[in-house]
């Protein structure tokens, strides 16, 4: 077996890192670069992979997934770019406010839920805002391979066009930037029509944008297998609820501002996870009994599975009601 994450483990293997650089890119986005304390090379990763960054924030452990944006050919450094979310749960604020060069952090081995389909004849990237990050690694990888690609990047305005200038300067003709404040939008229909056979399209951005791309591509006759997307969900706050964990033989309370997965971890339960964003399926948990309503928010379970009330994804989904018993 490889060093790839094993099923029974809670999360992927971990790597200790030193923050080697903290580079503000614009008002909202900062790049964090990591190296290993002993200078050893990092495990190789494929473009599109993410890592989960562990933050010790005043006794609370925060685990947030971020796409690796560095060149996969550079084994010395991993880099992530983090958009500060002032209304978020605090992970991005913690990174922006407290993490300085020289700090020690723990991250997980990269896991790729958004790989480039290398069978593709051409790759069209559609980015919205901070959704640019996985494409930076993909562009580096495809440039190395000499593959055909183009990027269509939608940003709010010039000041918030994260990496737009560098990308345009480095790859003129392949990078197209659209500014909301100039009423510009990605001409999706025109872009989809006329692409050579075997083209794949990739979208990373807000949920509305991802849905729009999937819907429009299907209308234009694109097979599903040629349309790739990634959206990490952040767990949403909600009313506290109690859960009985029958294998662990304990009853825990999920607080307003934590996810079910985080509550289990706080209570010392080894629950599996990888992406912590409702995408990978690793944390899928069987429901033994319930009396109430599930708030399913994941992208993993099929609609009928969600409706059946027999499974829950504890990383993003919640519960409202009298009683919930999980097989964990």
């Amino acid at each position: 077996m490889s060093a790839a994450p094993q099923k029974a483990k809670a999360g992927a293997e971990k790597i200790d890192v030193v923050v080697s650089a903290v580079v503000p890119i614009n008002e909202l986005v900062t790049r964090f670069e990591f190296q290993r304390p002993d200078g050893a090379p990092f495990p190789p990763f494929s473009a599109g992979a993410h890592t989960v960054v562990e933050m010790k924030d005043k006794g609370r452990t925060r685990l947030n997934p971020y796409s690796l944006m560095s060149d996969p050919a550079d084994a010395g450094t991993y880099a992530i770019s983090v958009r500060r979310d002032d209304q978020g749960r605090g992970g991005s604020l913690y990174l922006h406010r407290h993490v300085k060069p020289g700090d020690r952090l723990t991250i997980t081995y990269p896991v790729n839920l958004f790989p480039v389909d290398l069978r593709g004849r051409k790759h069209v990237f559609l980015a919205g805002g901070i959704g640019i990050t996985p494409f930076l690694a993909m562009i580096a990888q495809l440039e190395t391979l000499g593959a055909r690609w183009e990027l269509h990047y939608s940003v709010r305005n010039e000041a918030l066009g994260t990496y737009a200038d560098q990308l345009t300067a480095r790859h003129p003709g392949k990078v197209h930037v659209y500014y909301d404040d100039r009423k510009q939008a990605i001409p999706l229909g025109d872009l989809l029509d006329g692409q050579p056979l075997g083209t794949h399209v990739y979208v990373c951005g807000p949920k509305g944008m991802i849905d729009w791309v999937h819907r429009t591509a299907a209308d234009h006759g694109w097979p599903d297998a040629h349309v790739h997307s990634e959206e990490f969900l952040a767990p949403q706050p909600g009313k506290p609820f109690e859960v009985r964990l029958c294998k662990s033989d304990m009853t825990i309370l999920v607080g307003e501002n934590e996810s079910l997965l985080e509550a289990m971890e706080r209570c010392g339960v080894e629950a599996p996870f990888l992406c912590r964003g409702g995408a990978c399926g690793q944390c899928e948990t069987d429901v033994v009994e319930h009396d109430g309503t599930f708030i399913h928010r994941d992208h993993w379970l099929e609609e009928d599975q969600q409706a059946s009330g027999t499974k829950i994804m504890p990383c993003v989904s919640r519960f409202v009601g009298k009683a919930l018993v999980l097989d964990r």
Partner: protein
Amino acid sequence: MSKFQFPQSIASRPVYGTLAPRPGKAHLMMADAEGAEALLDLAAQAGARDSGLMAKAHILYLPRQTGEAFVDRLRALNPAQFYVGPSFDAALPRLRRVLSDAHMGLQVYLAGTEGLIGRAAAELAAAGIPVGSVQTEHRGSVARRMQCVHCKGITEDVITDPFVCAHCGLNLFVRDHYSRRLAAFQGVCIDAEDPGNVPEPVELYR
């Protein structure tokens, strides 16, 4: 009736569906023999809601032993382009030319024998359209395109098990193990250990 429900088998064995109209900028339909019936059904399904389907369709049809039985009915669907040819190999340059000019938004529909579906799917995969993105429907003969694993020769339209390799003459057992690259099932020598001890050939699925 030209439909046949294949029994469940190993994962390698291809499975086929039922053609349904899908949105697309162009529609490529390829069929042989009774596969024509699947295209006629497809057109009838589309008729009610998508009268534009045939106006953007290119049909490649290989009548084989059905002769003229379906040709006029297919022509009456008024596809934008209609080709009738004697064999897959005869139609291949045209298929490749169509694919080299095609763009994303092309919908592909394959119908007929496993040999036709498999060979066309392999061409499509080479052109950048993976197997899962193409609709297929089996109609007509259950005869198979077989590769002899010993001499690598291909025998078309094998209808009995075991059969004699058309190239090296070995007695071959018909397996469900399938190669998408070759568009052929595997035929393996059935009397290697005891030459001459060959079971009576039985027609496939009888």
